[in-house]
């Protein structure tokens, strides 16, 4: 019914709410079968982008082309995209079965065919035993799976998911995460997935789109974005919790208050202010003073099983975040080390 597509071109799509521009010139080409994650902090325009794709929000600029044909002029019911809403949006007055069957009835699929496909979808999300229940009688994870079944039973050419896991507890989130990836692969779906959780995005997606204030910061594979963040914001989002204000001294060394670091100059800066970014996990406790060592006073120690999360104070007063297996205690004066290849220097 819904023919797969080779390429969905989101062509400089913008959306403004009055003066406020929630999405600026999003330009992205999604290939059939791809799993794309839109990632960014709260309020960056992820839902706006998804709703524009679904047709629930009119665009204020740009167009959306599917294999060269415009789809942004179609109403949502004509696009044939499936959507999983953040709050699930299950129809409370219908049983699980009727919820899942709704899209098929709207498309006038014959009864036997409809029953078969509903059964199949319920089996896929392991809800066969709950078919007669109403949404209010289900747990959060089950409701979640009904929402997914309802969207995929139509075999939509594109599945849109808006933070589908954000209301679940940690264990269920992990379980559903693999479930979603599994469905994507077994059904050969094309998926656009919105999340503010970098770990989720890295785990699921073939390609990440990092947004900030409605503006694309970086598009790339999980490896690219994780290892080579395009700027300090993406770095901050990808777990580079230490973003220290520094000044360039040479093209690959920077100085902060009370320390000097060598690193990888990512923005080609030669002088002036910069930001040194590195991950807490890349910091180790050093024995002797040497290259890329900094001295800091341990302030807070959190127990995380094998590791400790340590917040230490640098001479200049900035916080240094460290994750280490060494046992430290508040009040310790400690010498820390960061390998130079793990320090990224960005424009501020």
């Amino acid at each position, binding site marked *: 019914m819904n023919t797969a597509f080779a390429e969905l071109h989101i062509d400089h799509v913008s959306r403004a709410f009055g003066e406020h521009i929630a999405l600026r010139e999003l330009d992205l080409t999604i290939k059939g079968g791809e799993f794309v994650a839109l990632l960014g902090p709260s309020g960056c325009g992820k839902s706006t982008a998804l709703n524009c794709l679904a047709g629930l929000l009119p665009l204020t600029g740009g167009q959306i082309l599917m294999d060269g044909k415009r789809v942004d002029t179609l109403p949502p019911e004509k696009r044939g995209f499936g959507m999983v809403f953040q709050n699930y949006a*299950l129809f409370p007055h219908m049983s699980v079965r009727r919820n899942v069957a*709704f899209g098929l009835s709207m498309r006038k699929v014959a009864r036997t065919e409809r029953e078969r496909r509903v059964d199949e979808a319920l089996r896929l999300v392991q809800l066969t035993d709950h078919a007669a229940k109403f949404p*209010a009688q289900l747990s959060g994870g089950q409701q979640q799976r009904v929402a997914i079944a309802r969207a995929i039973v139509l075999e939509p050419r594109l599945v849109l998911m808006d933070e589908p896991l954000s209301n679940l507890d940690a264990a269920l989130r992990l379980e559903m995460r693999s479930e979603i990836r599994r469905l994507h692969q077994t059904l050969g779906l094309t998926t656009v997935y919105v999340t503010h959780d970098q770990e989720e995005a890295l785990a699921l997606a073939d390609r990440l789109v990092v947004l900030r204030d409605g503006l694309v910061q970086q598009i790339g594979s999980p490896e690219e974005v994780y290892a080579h963040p395009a700027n300090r914001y993406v770095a901050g989002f990808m777990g580079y919790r230490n973003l220290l204000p520094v000044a360039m001294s040479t093209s690959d060394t920077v100085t902060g208050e009370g320390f000097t670091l060598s690193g990888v100059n990512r923005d080609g800066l030669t002088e002036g202010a910069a930001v040194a970014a590195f991950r807490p996990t890349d910091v180790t406790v050093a024995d002797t003073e040497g290259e890329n060592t900094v001295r800091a006073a341990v302030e807070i120690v959190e127990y995380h099983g094998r590791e400790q999360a340590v917040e230490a104070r640098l001479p200049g007063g900035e916080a240094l975040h460290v994750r280490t297996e060494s046992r430290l205690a508040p009040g310790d004066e400690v010498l820390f080390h960061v390998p130079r290849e793990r320090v990224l220097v960005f424009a501020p």
Partner: protein
Amino acid sequence: MTVTAPERPSLKHRLAERGVDRTLLLLVPGVLFVVLLFAYPVLYGLQLSFQPAEGGSPFANYSTFFSDPYLADTIWTTLRLAIPAALINVLASIPIAYRLRGRFRGKRFLTTILVVPITLGTVLTAEGLKQYLSPVGWFNRILMALGMDEPMRLVPSWTAVLFSLIITGFPFAFLLTLSYLSGIDPTLEQAAATLGADWRRRFRYITLPLLAPGLAITFCLTFVLAFSVFPSAYLVGLPQGETRVMSIAAYEAAFRDGDYPMGSTIAVIMAVVMLVVIALVLAWRSRLYRGATGGKG
């Protein structure tokens, strides 16, 4: 060795488990108010209805009412006005409230405009309508200016009474319907749209079923308002004919003929008829889905 039986929780604790504690005192003023101003008059009227002015069987007034078509027919006369009025109010408010359910400029202005007829009260509305529709009123003057030869005789009439019931009842029904509608999670309709439902089917399969319980309540309330119609039935209607509603019959019995027990009897029958209609509507409502409007997070 002694085994102490598990101690019974204190009385206070056990009462609190059942929701009996000192906060119940907060209900006292309300209960007093209801007893003095509602329960007492109702019970007084009820017992009065069983004490016919001419003596005899306690049910004499009731048998008089049902055996005298001039009285008994007022039930149908009243229902013939109140049911269409309530239906029109509810049915007309659905599409308008549906159209206006989102946020838009001037919504507050519109709701204010709509509340005005409620505050005016039925007497003023009926008076105004009488002037407006009279042979020398604005309505006829406009028609004449447009080339009509003779003024239309619009008041008094059944239609004029119905019209006045709509003027006073519609805003009420509209505001209620609007608030029920805004209680429905808008993402439900969006979800239906992404599943291929156009606006007609979204309304038919999502909004309407979720709205129906609220519509039943709205119907009951506007029905009750219309059922006890008195001023407009008198002022713009035919109080001796087509719009001789029950409240007129009760009024005549009590205050024209001085037969308070008969007046009370008619009032009691009015209450029973209303309760029957409401019970029917609520019985239908209880068969509908009635969970929280809106999706659970």
